[in-house]
């Protein structure tokens, strides 16, 4: 963020008073808002005005919801228009030879401050225009699995589990470990698989920057000859749906057959432990594992952490819903990407299979490959500290920029085809 704002300051034309009156208001804001974005904002603001009028006459929950969604865009656009108007007014005042010198100096000051606020307003407008991710308001599940690298990957995966738990606790997000399959070592634990549930609403939006392959470069504890190893840990952030689907609106209700996220219970095979031999009073088994298989997609979820079979079953369903929803959303994004690719000529899309970040212990640094940001306090990051926020914020801004780019490209293509 810091880097970005510095760049903007350098790029911003130091126009000041020397601005030619002929170029008018548009020049001042051109670098911030494309005409396509602006027209989109106007369109949405118009819709908001109409909806507000309709709401004045009679209340309707659906209309109110849409109006609520559009309100930020309309408000920020109003601010933007107001700022531009005042710039025009001030300039005409300055260009008027009749303006006395005292007023002139006041106007100059006002003009400066108006110009300064304009980029922030434009930025906010951009953000408001980006369609919210469908899962943005949901809590989430974060799944960690070691990839290539054997024991070392398992060890680092365990450290990443600790990192995210610490990060969530520090941010007040209440992490609960839903599943933790470890090889219980004498000193260090090697992770086989872990799932953390973060119940706070909106946790998906905060953590979705973390999906992808994380790479670690270090001399592992298990290495005797002092060689640096490179291993990988994959992280997947999944949306977590409430247990009762009807709490969601219909588009997200996984119990509603018309919803995109509907799961037909007939298509899920449930397996409990099915041991042969004597049962009932004859034996006292403590296993309570549940395995769910979504037959059409071959998605398998198994849960054995809890002693209660009921609890394992609930958790397994939660995981299955999350995985299927994410897969469906991914498929939809892929489709969109195909559409856009023709327009943009190759969009940088980071999938879950891509390497997104490197933790280098030798140089004590953490580099995110999407934004190129490097933070040098590696210990702090692994403790889930501020450094991780810095990295995540930079990625969030990067994602937002990519989305704006894609949107502009789409709008431009639409405009051309009209």
């Amino acid at each position, binding site marked *: 963020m810091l880097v970005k704002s510095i760049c903007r300051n350098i790029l911003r034309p130091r126009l000041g008073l020397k601005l030619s009156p002929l170029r008018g208001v548009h020049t001042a804001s051109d670098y911030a808002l494309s005409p396509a974005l602006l027209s989109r904002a106007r369109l949405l603001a118009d819709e908001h005005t109409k909806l507000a009028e309709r709401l004045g006459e009679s209340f309707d929950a659906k209309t109110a919801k849409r109006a609520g969604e559009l309100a930020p865009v309309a408000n920020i656009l109003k601010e933007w228009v107001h700022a531009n108007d005042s710039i025009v007014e001030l300039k005409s005042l300055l260009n008027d030879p009749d303006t006395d010198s005292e007023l002139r100096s006041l106007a100059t000051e006002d003009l400066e401050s108006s110009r300064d606020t304009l980029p922030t307003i434009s930025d906010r407008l951009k953000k408001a225009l980006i369609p919210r991710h469908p899962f943005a308001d949901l809590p989430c599940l974060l799944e960690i699995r070691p990839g290539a690298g054997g024991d070392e990957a398992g060890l680092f995966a365990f450290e990443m589990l600790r990192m995210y738990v610490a990060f969530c606790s520090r941010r007040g997000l209440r992490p609960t470990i839903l599943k933790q399959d470890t090889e*219980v070592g004498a000193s260090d634990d090697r992770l086989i698989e872990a799932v953390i549930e973060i119940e706070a609403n909106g946790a998906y939006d905060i953590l979705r920057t973390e999906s992808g392959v994380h790479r670690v470069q270090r001399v592992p504890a298990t290495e005797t000859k002092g060689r640096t190893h490179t291993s990988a840990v994959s992280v997947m952030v999944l949306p977590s749906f409430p247990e009762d689907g009807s709490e969601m609106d219909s588009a997200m209700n996984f119990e509603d057959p018309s919803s995109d996220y509907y799961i037909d219970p007939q298509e899920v095979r449930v397996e409990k432990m099915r041991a042969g031999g004597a049962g009932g009073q004859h034996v006292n088994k*403590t296993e309570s594992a549940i395995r769910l298989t979504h037959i059409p997609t071959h998605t398998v979820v198994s849960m054995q952490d809890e002693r209660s079979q009921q609890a394992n079953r609930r958790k397994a369903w939660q995981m299955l819903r999350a995985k299927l929803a994410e897969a469906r959303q991914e498929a939809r994004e892929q489709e969109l990407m195909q559409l856009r690719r023709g327009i943009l000529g190759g969009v940088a899309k980071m999938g879950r299979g891509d390497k997104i970040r490197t933790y280098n212990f030798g140089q004590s640094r953490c580099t995110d490959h999407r934004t190129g940001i490097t933070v040098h306090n590696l210990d702090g990051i692994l403790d889930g500290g501020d450094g991780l926020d810095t990295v995540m914020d930079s990625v969030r801004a990067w994602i937002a920029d990519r989305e704006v780019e894609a949107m502009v490209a789409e709008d431009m293509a639409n405009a051309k085809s009209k």
Partner: protein
Amino acid sequence: MPRIPFSVIIKAQRENNLLPILLKECRTIDSARNELRWLRERAVRDSQSLPSKAGWRSRLRSMCRMRSRGYPLQYILGDQPFGDLEILCRRGVLIPRPETESYTYQAANLVRQMALGHNDKSKSPNQARPLRVIDLCTGTGCIPLLLHALLCPHFQELEITGVDISPTALDLARENLEHNLQLGQLAPRAGTDIHFYRADVLGHNSDNSVPSIESMLQTQHPNLGALDISSPDQESECDLLISNPPYISQTDFRNGTTARSVRRFEPKLALVPPYLGSGMEDCMPEDIFYHRILTLALKLKAKLTVLECGDSHQANRVVALHKRLASAESGQSRAEVWPSREQDLADNGFHETDGSRGVIIRTLR
């Protein structure tokens, strides 16, 4: 019992030196890992809450040693999940099994279906009196408590009675009622809806120190009438009679069918029916409880009877026994082994041929 491969023991040893100890009882590394984690969580929690000289590590070690001797995990940890309830477990009382959980859920489903069916015919006998459930050989009280949790949202009035011969079991059952009320897993009304009484289901006590089930029911529920078979017009006073009675034969108790841990540490009273000598010629010694319970079900005109059995052979014997006993009756009934359909077996995690089975008897009107 198949030998554990040496490679597995080595792997376990490398991972954690407590794992091979647990492997002796758990048999698989996954299961041993899980138990080690549960024991560790408990050991750490105990060392934080209880003032103790020993740290959690030594506590964990001694827990693992106990477990490797076959001491049940539930007696070490002190509880067992049952549905969403937490059932306290203690030496002298049978630990609830997952199959029993399945039968209890199924019984609750059938009771609800039955009530809905009656409402459709716009005559609702359940309005006149509370829904009445009797659980014989209740042990920890897990069945009455789970039934209350499951039926409570659907029935205004419930009257659930748990019966056992063992005072230890009855104490624990009452404690479990209190415990789950405190956990908030049971609605407050469970405190007045559920009762536990001491009685002898077999009724063979010569010295009458324990009341027979009939005399207990008559004392506690005078409105159950004289339990008179000869009055066919009498309305049913019991909606569900459910039981997980002792059902292991003397042979199966000794020949390795019954696991060492169960044989050594769980009460034989809850597992093997006593030998009554003569007088029960028409059924096998391990089935005597079913004989008594089926007879009682007929007397009470129980609308639904759910019985846990050791395996499908025993379940089939119970179905046959019911047909024989009911043939003298005027009313019609249907007895079936459950689960027996493939879907039911799979959904409830039952093996296709092995393991426990239940018998469900529905009175038809």
